[in-house]
């Protein structure tokens, strides 16, 4: 049988797609390593839909969102630019009306969306996958698809809106105060807020404290993460602790996954080893350290900085500057919190629903492992959804799996360019889009190599500071356990479930990122230097190296080559 495209209609096609754009950028933040076919299908279809929905709802004057293509597990994007000046003008007029609700009532709008989307999750979760009929399982999967579509609409409407505000804020602080994002003051202004992601981290920290109080510290310290559950079962008070732990996983932290933009890794609810490791880490470090105090400290600093900064703003400019400051703070808070309510949660729902079907299909003989579902796309899920016993999906799965393994080994290129087109031209087009998401998250600011500094790597500042420390290159969450106090984390990118480890780190170097990506926001919250967009950090740097990180300059020096 013919193997379908992974993302029918949106597979990269050299013969036609260069007409849309001579250059397609890889989404390195999310699609490295390459996506499984099912996840790629979801992302390409609905992230693409969400961006166009967001850009259109807000009527962004210069860009209509992005076009996306799937190529060998990689997501490639091109900006849909508005080139006609008259059309730009008309869009500007609509933008004035469309952006207003977000300026006037950011918190209310965001809370409304959170309620809406969490309501959908609750409904999806209310189906018992083990007792449901095949028809119900398929319906659950269809609803998951629709929830994903809606999640991306919310995601990109919010993101375009708040990031526009953030870019404006960056520009104004530069103009009015002479501080840019290398200044500690700048970051102090946008950190020190409570958010859902932080609450989950705090919950884990509270569990560590509880473990200590219950006399379970040794059990944790002497046992490796994956065996903690068994060890606790036989320890006094261990059962009581586990009950609290499981309850917390069920209600709060269970949707966390090692990789935010994938579905092929277990959630913490399925495999809580990473959560046990976080608790273990807290116990090793000593629970006298308090996340809450850290947050409080940031808050106090923020309030003091706000006061300092406002004193420097002319009185007649203060009132609107404060409005923009508040929006920028909302942007930063949204950036950190949306991962929990939107991406992570939805992806956990996709995984849950797909595995529910997968287990049934294994029983019916359509596939060998429930996880094989991730190599199928919704059309194929529908094919065998109601009567999995009638279809053998193994050949489809195995061919796709072979492809996927090939993609992973080969890796994807950072840009697909039309012949004769240069990187410089490509970057210029990107900058001309003025697309706030492109600038703030996916692409970021391009580092400028400054040979006179003789650095080994050049990046841009995500969080200011200068530090020296031992390199620990981390590709996956499971490797986080090797982090020791003061280490420099080197990674392709970081994800929300990595947050707890930041309290141990001396600094962070990521291959890709921008001032509103996870590493930068959390780095600022924890007050540690972060250098981003070094591109080749994970290639150049090796465990055991000692580096000096000057985030203010965006430079990394290897001290023991």
């Amino acid at each position: 049988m013919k193997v379908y495209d992974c993302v029918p209609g949106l597979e990269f096609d050299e013969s036609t797609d260069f007409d849309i754009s001579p250059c397609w950028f890889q989404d390195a933040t999310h699609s490295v390593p390459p996506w499984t076919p099912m996840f790629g299908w979801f992302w390409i279809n609905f992230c693409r839909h969400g961006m166009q929905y967001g850009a259109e709802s807000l009527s962004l004057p210069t860009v209509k969102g992005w076009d996306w293509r799937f190529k060998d597990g990689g997501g490639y994007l091109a900006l849909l630019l508005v080139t006609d000046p008259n059309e730009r003008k008309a869009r500007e007029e609509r933008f004035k009306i469309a952006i207003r609700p977000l300026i006037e009532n950011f918190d209310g709008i965001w809370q409304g969306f959170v309620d809406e989307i969490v309501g959908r999750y609750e409904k999806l979760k209310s189906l018992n996958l083990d007792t449901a009929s095949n028809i119900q399982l398929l319906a659950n999967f269809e609803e998951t698809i629709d929830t994903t579509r809606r999640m991306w609409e919310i995601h990109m409407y919010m993101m375009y809106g708040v990031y526009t505000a953030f870019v404006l804020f960056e520009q104004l602080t530069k103009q009015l105060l002479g501080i840019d994002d290398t200044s500690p003051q700048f970051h102090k202004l946008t950190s020190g807020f409570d958010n859902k992601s932080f609450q989950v981290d705090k919950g884990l920290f509270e569990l560590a404290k509880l473990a200590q109080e219950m006399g379970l510290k040794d059990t944790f310290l002497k046992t490796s993460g994956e065996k903690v559950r068994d060890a606790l079962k036989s320890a006094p008070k261990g059962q009581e602790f586990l009950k609290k732990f499981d309850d917390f996983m069920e209600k709060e932290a269970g949707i966390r996954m090692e990789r935010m933009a994938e579905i092929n890794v277990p959630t913490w609810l399925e495999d809580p080893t990473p959560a046990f490791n976080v608790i273990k880490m807290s116990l090793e470090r000593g629970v006298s350290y308090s996340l809450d105090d850290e947050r409080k400290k940031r808050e106090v600093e923020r309030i003091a900085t706000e006061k300092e900064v406002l004193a420097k703003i002319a009185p007649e400019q203060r009132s609107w500057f404060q409005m923009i400051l508040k929006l920028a703070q909302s942007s930063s808070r949204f950036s950190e919190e949306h991962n929990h309510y939107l991406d992570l949660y939805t992806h956990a729902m996709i995984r849950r629903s797909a595995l529910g079907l997968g287990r049934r299909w294994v029983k019916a003989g359509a596939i060998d492992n429930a996880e094989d579902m991730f190599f199928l796309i919704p059309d194929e899920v529908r094919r065998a959804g109601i009567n999995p016993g009638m279809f053998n999906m193994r050949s489809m799965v195995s061919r796709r799996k072979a492809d996927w393994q090939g993609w992973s080994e080969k890796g994807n290129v950072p840009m697909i360019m039309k012949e004769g087109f240069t990187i410089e031209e490509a970057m210029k087009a990107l900058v001309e889009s003025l697309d706030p998401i492109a600038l703030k998250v996916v692409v970021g600011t391009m580092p400028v190599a400054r040979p006179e500094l003789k650095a080994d790597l050049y990046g841009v500042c995500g969080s200011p500071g200068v530090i020296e420390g031992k390199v620990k290159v981390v590709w996956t969450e499971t490797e986080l356990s090797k982090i020791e106090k003061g280490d420099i984390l080197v990674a392709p990118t970081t994800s929300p479930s990595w947050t707890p480890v930041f309290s141990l780190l001396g600094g962070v170097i990521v291959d890709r990122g921008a001032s509103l990506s996870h590493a930068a926001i959390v780095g600022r919250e924890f007050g540690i230097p972060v250098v981003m967009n070094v591109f080749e950090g994970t290639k150049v740097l090796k465990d055991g190296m000692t580096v000096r990180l000057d985030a203010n300059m965006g430079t990394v020096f290897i001290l023991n080559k």
Partner: protein
Amino acid sequence: MEVKEIYWLDELSKEYNDLVGKKCANLGELIRQGLRVPYGFALSVKAYEHFMEATGLKEKVSQIVEEAVATGLDVEQDMGKMIETSAQIRGAIEECPMPPDLAADIGRYYSGLQEKVAIDQVACAVRSSGAVSMPGQMETYLNVAGEKAIIEHVKKVWGSAFTTRAIAFRIQQNMPISWAPIGVAVIMMIEARCAGVILTLLPNIGDTDRAIVEGNFGLGESVVSGDITPDSFVVHKHDMIIESKSVAAKTKMVVYDTCGTRICDVSEELKDQPCINDDEILEIVRVAKDVETYFGVPQDMEWVVDKRFSFPESIFWVQARGAKFAKKEAHKDEEYVIDLMLQLFRK
């Protein structure tokens, strides 16, 4: 509320509006808010009633009016008759001696006033103070000094309720023509070294952390009318720091004349000097802040510095009201922010 014929201003409040008229009741309110207002006393409508009844003028005025009406008193048809009637009534009132007990009472209050300000034969302004403003009843007599003169001018104010305009107004409004009780304010004249206004916010931008004091030499009219460029001082209300001073070249000022005010030149050596010193500025802000706190809204107030008294007793207040300012349009900031956002897409 005690009903009397004469009150000290500090006995009054808004409740006395119908009795002593708006002007005097307002001054009483200002005193209640802790403001020093020019010293004086108020004759209530009871004094008017006493006067009209004890002298038989009540009947006499009714008679004059009845006769006039009988022979066709008409606003449009016969202006001559209106003028004649008015002159007849006003003449009767002004010629009629003040009843001795009332005259003694007024005399007592005037002596009291002289003692209070420690100025013999203190000059006063004698003005009408109606419960509602009524056109034609705005007689003001300035520089009235001495008990006798005060009494004469009180009668003149009562008579001013029978100007042709006032009578015509009452005819048109179907109000009683011959009975027009009105309050009278007798208030010491200020010898203004300088005067001006304070706004307890910066009106253009609605900055409520700051107050602006504006002033000129002489009376406050020149500042209130906006005819000259006054000195202007911006004060931070919480830190009580004078943040900016702009001293204007003040070529003209307004002073009292025998009947009213006139504009005159400011002397060469004085015109570039600030009209008010730092202590006075800060005292003005301090008092205005209290009033703002009392009312809960920014205030627009008129002050005057009397050269005969020493600081801070020299600062008098003549007006206080809620400040009218370019009330921040509800969406002004939003619109500006949206504009700035649009700029981002225009690079």
